């Protein structure tokens, strides 16, 4: 097989780049500003589908429905990663390339800047003719004093801090450059020349910003490894014990061992839910008793914006609702079920749905009840609705089923849904499915000798979210240094001011000039301050910077 040519020159005998040459070329391309720019624009573009299409990590239910409803395009989009944009190969590729470009750009620049900071400040140019603004000042002190005064004015603080925040200064004694080098009697004319240089901090800020960005990415990556998160529902009066199995859902990064969870307990003493008259939520507060092993129990309040701090993690109040307490007595007169059942709110007025599953009846088939809770029930022409989330007139409408609940198959089941495949509705005397309403404190007898159900109490539940991410302080630190670096790199002024004072003259005439970008409105004032300092004059009214 012929050797594969990876380059293609018009002139056959021209020297080849070779593999190393090509790699170098590719690296140079990747680290060029143009490619960084294109990658940035691509990154912005690539993120947009994540807001338009449903995403697996954020909305698994809707994403599945989207695929089901779009038989052709749905699976294609799923395959191409459009339904999990931020975990997709192409999105990852863009930001990995971008960070490669960033590092490739920032490392040489950091080295260059380090050298530039160590290099001496450039000397004063020979002639000020080309520079604007410029100025001159007569003073009766000698050149050394004049220059020293200007130095003090421009850089009041010595040491590295002064160099970092203000001007770097260089003073030379040299032969007069601008004008005759000797006097009429042949003596050499000498002068003191001072450079005040400011603005190297701009590049420093730029570097800090970009390096911090890398640390932000590292912190985020470390966070996904070390994080853990669990969701639990706690009913008023009940206690939750912290363990991976106790959570309804629990997920963790590969760097965390669930066995490390501390077995603290949280008892929900009460949940205050305050609503306005129109049903808008006003305030949610969960009163809990926290018991950490080896410590005294403490009472805490958890609110939406005030999580509970425990065991290096935070427990958030993420939701709430009702968990009505039922007692089911079967046809044989035995209590087959007693306890709270979590009903999930479906709307703003807490119309909630839930199911009661009774597998352990003494005889006969298992019982399942599908219910809808209306906290403040009002009968309207179209049927019953709830008009307020508070329990003003709580009524639960049930449909009863008998048969096999499917709990014994070993397949995990959704606790909030009834698997109706092996169930049949209980029918009333009229042959229609038996639907009944039950008010708080009531007991209803089911037809066909299926027993009775009573609605005993209506406590609330709190949906708690436990989350720990040990990378957070690092992430915050990296973000703050990023912000600081950014501000410095955009707002620091780049400016150079020169002063030249001839030595051994009867009156010293200090010449000065400055070099600054055209938008630097403060340079003239700074120049005037330096000049005024040499003679002790009060500087002209400072023009505002900018």
């Amino acid at each position: 097989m012929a050797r594969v040519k990876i380059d293609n020159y018009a002139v056959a005998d021209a020297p080849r780049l070779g593999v190393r040459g090509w790699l170098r070329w590719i690296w140079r391309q990747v680290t060029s500003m143009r490619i960084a720019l294109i990658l940035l624009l691509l990154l912005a573009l690539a993120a947009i589908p994540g807001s338009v299409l449903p995403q697996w990590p954020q909305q698994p239910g809707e994403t599945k429905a989207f695929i089901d409803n779009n038989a052709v395009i749905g699976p294609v989009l799923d395959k191409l990663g459009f339904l999990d944009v931020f975990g997709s190969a192409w999105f990852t590729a863009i930001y990995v390339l971008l960070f490669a470009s960033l590092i490739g750009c920032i490392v040489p620049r950091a080295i260059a800047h380090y050298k530039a900071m160590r290099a001496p400040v450039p000397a004063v140019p020979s002639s000020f003719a080309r520079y604007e603004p410029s100025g001159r000042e007569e003073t009766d002190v000698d050149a050394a004093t004049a220059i020293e005064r200007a130095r003090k004015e421009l850089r009041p603080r010595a040491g590295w801090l002064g160099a970092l925040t203000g001007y770097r200064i260089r003073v030379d004694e040299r032969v007069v450059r601008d004008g005759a080098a000797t006097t009429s009697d042949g003596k050499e004319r000498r002068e003191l020349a001072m450079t005040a240089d400011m603005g190297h901090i701009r590049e420093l800020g730029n570097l800090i910003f970009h390096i911090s960005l890398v640390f932000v990415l590292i912190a985020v990556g470390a966070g996904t490894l070390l994080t853990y998160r669990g969701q639990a529902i706690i009913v008023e009066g009940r206690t939750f014990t912290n363990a991976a199995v106790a959570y309804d859902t629990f997920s963790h990064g590969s760097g965390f061992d669930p066995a490390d969870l501390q077995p603290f307990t949280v008892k929900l003493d009460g949940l205050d839910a305050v609503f306005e008259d129109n049903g808008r939520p006003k305030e949610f507060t969960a009163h809990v008793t926290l018991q950490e092993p080896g410590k005294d129990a403490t009472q805490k309040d958890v609110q939406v914006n005030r999580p509970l701090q425990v065991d290096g993690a935070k427990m958030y109040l993420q939701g709430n609702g009702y968990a009505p307490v039922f007692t089911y007595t079967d046809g044989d007169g035995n209590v087959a079920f007693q306890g709270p059942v979590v009903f999930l709110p479906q709307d703003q007025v807490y119309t909630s749905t839930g199911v009661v599953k009774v597998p352990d009846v003494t005889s006969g088939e298992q019982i399942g009840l599908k219910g809808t809770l209306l906290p403040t029930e009002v009968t309207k022409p179209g049927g019953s609705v709830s008009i307020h989330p508070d329990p003003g007139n709580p009524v639960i409408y049930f449909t009863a089923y008998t048969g096999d609940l499917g709990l014994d198959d070993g397949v995990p089941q959704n606790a909030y849904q009834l698997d109706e495949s092996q169930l049949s509705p209980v029918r009333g005397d009229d042959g229609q499915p038996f639907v009944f309403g039950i008010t708080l404190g009531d007991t209803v007898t089911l037809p066909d000798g299926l027993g009775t159900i009573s609605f005993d109490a209506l406590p609330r539940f709190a949906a708690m979210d436990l989350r720990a991410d040990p990378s957070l302080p690092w992430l915050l630190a990296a973000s703050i240094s990023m912000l600081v670096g950014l501000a410095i790199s955009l707002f620091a002024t780049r400016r150079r001011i020169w002063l030249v004072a001839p030595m051994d003259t009867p009156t010293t005439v200090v010449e000065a000039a400055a070099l600054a970008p055209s938008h630097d409105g403060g340079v003239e004032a700074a120049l005037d301050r330096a000049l005024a300092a040499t003679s002790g004059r009060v500087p002209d009214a400072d023009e505002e910077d900018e």
Partner: protein
Amino acid sequence: MNDLQQLSAMALWGACVLYAIAMVAYAIRLSRVAELKGAAAAASKGAESQATVSVGTSHTKEGAASAVADAQPTGGKAGASKPKATTASAAIGDQKATKALGIARAATLVGAVLHTVGVTARGIEAEHVPWSTMYEYTISGSLVAVVVFLLVQRKRDITYMGAGVTGLATIALGLGLTVLYQDATGLQPALQSFWLVIHVSIATIATGIFGVGFIATALQLMRDYRDSEPKVVSNRFLKVFHDPGVRVIKGKTFRFLEAVPTPKKLEALAFRLNAVGFVLWTFTVMAGAIWAEHAWGRYWGWDPKEIWSFVIWVIYAAYLHARTTQGWAGRRSAWVSIVGFAAIIMNFTVVNLVFQGLHSYAKA
């Protein structure tokens, strides 16, 4: 309807009307100054062709200089920089420009005062900071834009941007009062945090600053296209279709562009504004992440609002890079920042109203 509510609505309607008046006055002033400049340029051409520099001419030069300076009490650079000659018509134009500018400034100032009263009254009525819903965000954000304009105006003459800023504020207030208006309500539990004060206020300020930067960039691009020569197309048929935008912008309608500074100066101004906006936006995103961590238990979850805040941040970052990239500085980088502002508007409108996400309380 209680008194505060009425006061707020009336003050904001008043501000809206005054901004509209100011916009028209600023536009008139701009076109007059452009006319003056055109006349001055024509006159100076004539003078040069005669090649005579007499004492009389220099007199008229001074006269023109003082006349134009009168027209711009702030020391406007637009007309005063090159006073060449004067004509009778220019003098009339001067008076009209002066009058228009006076009206524009008074209307903007009084409008801003009313605007402030309206926003403050809304805040007192609602008993929380006036930026928790789309309506409140709109009235506060537009107030920031006007205030930024007035503040920058104190330091340098940007009268030429007056029409754009007051126009933007008129549209924002009008839309806010008619389409987005909602009665004040208490804060939802998720919003009961001091981060609402920090996160959203900085976002509002950043939006206002980006808005003024956007106007500077838009003017920069328009002026740039007006100054440039369209490509010469020899084909008779293709000629008709070629560069219609350039044709329009070189036409009479856009003569006011003669009165705005050069693209280079506008670019420098836009950069300074966008740089401030970018730093504030970075802070907004960071503060938002901290708040999200407090309220929702995660600092970043790619919620639609978070996605678009990220997109905006990346676009403006691209803009800052483009400015210093060969081949991208100037027009292209300006277009990138225009896209960035479009994304901000998108984030505020479509993302709030159409996309489902955790930030959806913004519309309610």
